[in-house]
Every structure is written in C-alpha cells, then in structure tokens.
C-alpha cells in the first residue's frame, strides 16, 4: 500500500510536469490550429539555459523565472517570423516546417553541448525525502507538484477572470467573429504563443532532474506532449490537466508493475482514448 501511494505520488509529479510543458502546445493547437512539433525544442532549450546559468553560479531557483522569460521572448520571436505565416498552410507544411525546426534544434544542442546528459545542482532543501504518513516522498517531486498546482490556479484565474483570458477564449471559439468585435487576434496569438513557450521553457528546466536532459529530449518527449494534447483535446485547459495526470500516472505505474510491457501502456492507452474520444476528452471541435 505504501509503495502504491509512492507510485501515485510519482505519477502525479510526472503528470504535473507534462501538464506544464504541454499546456502551451495545447493552446497553440487549439487557438492557432498549428501542429507544432517543435514544442519539445522550446522545453529542451529551457533546460539547457538553466544548466548554463547554473554553471555560472546562478542558483537553480533563480534560473527558473529567467528560463520562462527567455523562452517566452524566443517564442514571441518565432511566432512573428515563422508560425504566423504557417497558420493558413496545410497540415503537411506545418508538420514539415516544425520537424525541420526540431532537427535544427537537436543538432544545435548536440554541437554546442555534446551528447552527454546534463545535471543541475538542486538547492539543499529540495534534495532528499519528506516523510508523509510514514511514506518517503521525494522532496523535489513534492516541490514540483506544489509549484505546478500554484501555476495552474494562476492560469485558470488568468483565463477565466482577466480580459486577456476572455480574449483568448473568444479567439479560440471563433477567430473571425472575435476579430470583427475588435479583439486584436494577432496580438493575442503572439502573446499566447510566447506564454506557452515560456511555460515549456520553465517545464524543461524543472524536468532536468526528473526526465534527464540531452539533445534528443526534444524528440523523445515530444511524443508525450502530443499525446497529452491529442487525448486531452487541443485548446482545453481542463482536458490537458486530466490527460497529463492520467498518462503520467499510467506511465509510472506501468513501468513499475509491468516493466516488460514498458511504453506500450502509454501508446495503447492513447489509441484507445483516441478511438473513444476522437476530439479528445474535452474536445472543442468535433
């Protein structure tokens, strides 16, 4: 029973990480209708930036907001230069372009940092274990869950209670009517994309200690992010959260209880979920 609790805990921690990184992708796909296969690359560069800053004496916790801001700016730049033009193109063009971008990102990381796995120095308080109800839980994972919970509440408030959030929701629902009502849809897209990229960068920095960071990160975990989005339903905050937690928990539990089946659990689960809910759990578009 104790180990079961531990596994659920690890699964939730993993799921919150998936949520943090995937939410930007989900909104991009739902809002802008862009299949962005380069999303994992934003997370990867967030991780590398955090490692690079840490190596120069910046404390890990300070690198986190810096990663968010830097990747957000990078996302805004990419949106203006590339993604804005991709919005009206076919799915094939989007897939090709973003695959190309991912290859360039992976190759750049390989050339600059080499193929070795990177590490970061966690602050003392986040190392070791916490004793909760007689179960040892990783302190860093507890921190992860708490941080993502706080950020999610912030996100919900942002989307539900602010004018910006209302504009985002309106643009997702109907772009042309929103534009007709005077909502600067282009600027909303750019800001949202930047925000999503920033969150991906933050998630990438946070995931170094959990998922490991190497140049293939951008491709290896992209599948998980895409899974979360397609299962949760593109553009849905709640769907993404549920899908992240479900997939994260199943993945961790599967690897623990039936290691020989391995990644099948996740792929099988995805195929089943996609068959039952073709537009995702909370799909907006049928």
């Amino acid at each position, binding site marked *: 029973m104790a180990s079961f609790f531990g596994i659920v805990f690890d699964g939730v921690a993993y799921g919150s990480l998936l949520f943090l990184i995937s939410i930007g992708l989900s909104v991009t796909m739902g809002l802008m209708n862009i299949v962005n296969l380069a999303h994992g690359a934003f997370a990867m560069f967030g991780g590398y930036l955090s490692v690079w800053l840490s190596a120069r004496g910046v404390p890990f916790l300070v690198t986190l907001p810096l990663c968010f801001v830097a990747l957000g700016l990078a996302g805004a730049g990419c949106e203006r230069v590339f993604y804005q033009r991709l919005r009206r*193109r076919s799915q094939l063009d989007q*897939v090709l*372009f973003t695959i190309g971008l991912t*290859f360039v990102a992976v*190759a750049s990381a390989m050339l600059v940092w080499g193929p070795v796995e990177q590490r970061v120095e966690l602050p003392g308080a986040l190392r070791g274990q916490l004793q909760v109800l007689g179960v040892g839980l990783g302190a860093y994972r507890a921190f992860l869950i708490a941080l993502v919970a706080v950020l999610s509440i912030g996100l919900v408030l942002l989307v539900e209670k602010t004018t910006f959030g209302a504009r985002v929701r309106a643009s997702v629902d109907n772009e042309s009517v929103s534009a007709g009502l005077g909502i600067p849809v282009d600027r909303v897209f750019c800001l949202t994309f930047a925000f999503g990229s920033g969150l991906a960068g933050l998630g990438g920095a946070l995931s170094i200690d959990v998922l490991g960071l190497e140049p293939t990160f951008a491709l290896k975990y992209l599948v998980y992010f895409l899974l979360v989005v397609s299962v949760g339903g593109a553009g849905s905050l709640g769907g993404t959260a549920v899908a992240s937690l479900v997939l994260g928990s199943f993945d961790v539990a599967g690897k623990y209880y039936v290691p020989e*089946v*391995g*990644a099948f659990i996740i792929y099988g689960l995805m*195929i089943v979920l996609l068959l039952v809910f*073709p537009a995702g759990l909370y799909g907006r578009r049928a």
Partner: protein
Amino acid sequence: MSSDVVPPVDASASAPPIVARAPGLDDRFGRLEIVFWLLAIAPLLVLPDYLVLASQVLIAALFALSLDLILGYAGIVSLGHAAFFGVGAYVAGLLSVRGHAEPLSGLVVAALASGVVGFCTSFLVVGGHGLTRLMVTLAVGLSLHEAANQASSVTGGTDGLSGMETSDLLSLLPFDMLGKTAYLYVLGVCFVVFLLVRRLVHSPFGLSLRGIRENERRMHALGAPVQRRLIEVYTLAAALAGVAGALSAQTTEFVGLETLGFDRSAGALVMLVLGGAGRLYGAFVGSCLFMLLQSVFSDIHPAYWQFWMGCLVMLIAFFARGGILGYASDMLMRLRERRALSAAAPAARTRA
C-alpha cells in the same frame, strides 16, 4: 483563340481519339521517363564502386514511393510509415535466419505481412482526422518500435537481427561483394512496383484518391466509398513499404531497430517532399538528393547533416511546396507559355 493562331503542338491531335480520356488517366510513357529508367541502369556500368549506395538509394526511393501513394495521392500525412518498412524487414530477416533464404518468396511473404499490419491499423488511421490521424500514425509506429525492442529474443533487440543469408537470385545469380546482383535485384523490383503504382494512380481508383485528397466531403457526397478507398490505399502502401524493407534486409543481410524508427518515417517524408509529392518520380529524385547530401554532410559530423537537413526542410515547407519536380514543371510551363506567346505574336501582327 482561333486555331490558326496556335501552331499544332501535338501531331496525334490531328487524328481524333476514339475514346476521350480524362487528363488524369493518360498514362503513356513519356520520353523523359524512358531516359530516367535508362539512367537507373547506368550505375551498373559507370559507378561499379558505388552500387551498394545506389541500392540503398533505390530502396529509400521505393519506400518514399509507397508513402507517396498515401500522402501525395490520398492526402494522409503519416509520421509512422516506417512501421511497415520495419515489419517487412523483420519478416524477411527472420525467414532468412530460420533457414528460408530464397529472396523472391521472402519478398512476397514480407509484403503480405506488412500489408496485413497495414490493413489492421488502417481502421485506426482512417477513423480519425487532422491531429488525431497524425497521432495515430505516430503511435502505431512507436508501438511497433517498442514491440521489436521488447521482443529481443526474436528480433535481437538493440543489437539487431544478424546471421542472415540470402541465397542466389533465381538460383542463378549469387549476391556478390560489390553488390552487382543486389543492385539488379533492387532495380528490377523497383521497376515492377513502380509500374504497378503508376498504373494505379492513372486508373479511376487513383483519380478518386486525388478527389478525396482535394475534398473528402465532396467525394462522400458524390457517392465515392471514401473510407474503403483510404483503407485500400493504406493497406497497399503498407505492403509496398514492406517490400522496400525486405529488400533492405536481404541486400544488407542485417535488420536493426532503426528500420522501425521515427527518423526513418520522417526521412521518407522529407525525401518525398524534397522531390515533390504526388508525382511518382518525386520519390526517386528526392531520395537521390537526400542520400547524396547525407553521405557528404555526415562525413563531416552527423549533427551537421541533421542541422542542414532541418534548414532544407524548413525552406521547402515555406517556399518550394511542390519540391524539385514541382519547381521544374512550373518553369517548364512558363517556358512553354512564353514560347506559345512569341509564336502567336507575329501571327497576330500579320492579321492586324
């Protein structure tokens, strides 16, 4: 425009055709096509040291051609087409390891096996749309990769399947070190498959696929069995990808996990789009250029290749959407227009 302005371009136009064929159904062999296939024989005589590479190029082209059927003609974007290449390769490899070394029958069995896998997964793929469809192709590819990885007692896992031996082709031609027989074999199979695909895309079946690609709903409304057409073409493309995989296994006498990998799926997509999707020859042109660039850049550093390929793909996605062949045919069209104009101009002047 009256007929005296335009010079007669086509001599056969003077004899009225008995049955008018739709433009998409015309499938006579053009002069350029004959030149192309003659060029494909050339490596045997001109480049005897590069036959192994040339065989690999042809195999990649055959694989891209199978992708062209579903992507270029039916409009299904697949990120997991390597699944069928891998199934074909492993089936041919396992047959050979278990003692059945005859290549041609191995090819047929491999094609059947990957066709069956394609048929079973086609329902998943055809059922979804947009992102869902894309994700299903990706998931199918990844699960087969994982399956081959887990079943290491059968497939050899990450070490790959070795100990293959391919017996003489037609009990006559032994596979030599230089790859002469292998090249002949691959070229022959490629040509036969190409003829089949060529006939198919110029048939009413191919035309209905193109209709589905352009507008699925309208084809539905016209009464075309959209689902069935897509399932059929997906199954066929899977079987042909299996042929390519089997050829790869038989000529290299090795099967590795990378035959099922994402890189191979993405690579085929890039080759096809580089050459020009929906044009049959795009697969060949694209894979030639892709493999050539790959061998040049990879020698410097594998990451360089990935970097420049990524840049190339981004450029294609933005600017050259028809690929090399699309660009060439655009240029040709423009040239012809200009020639027709300059031929028409003096005639118009004399009339005035």
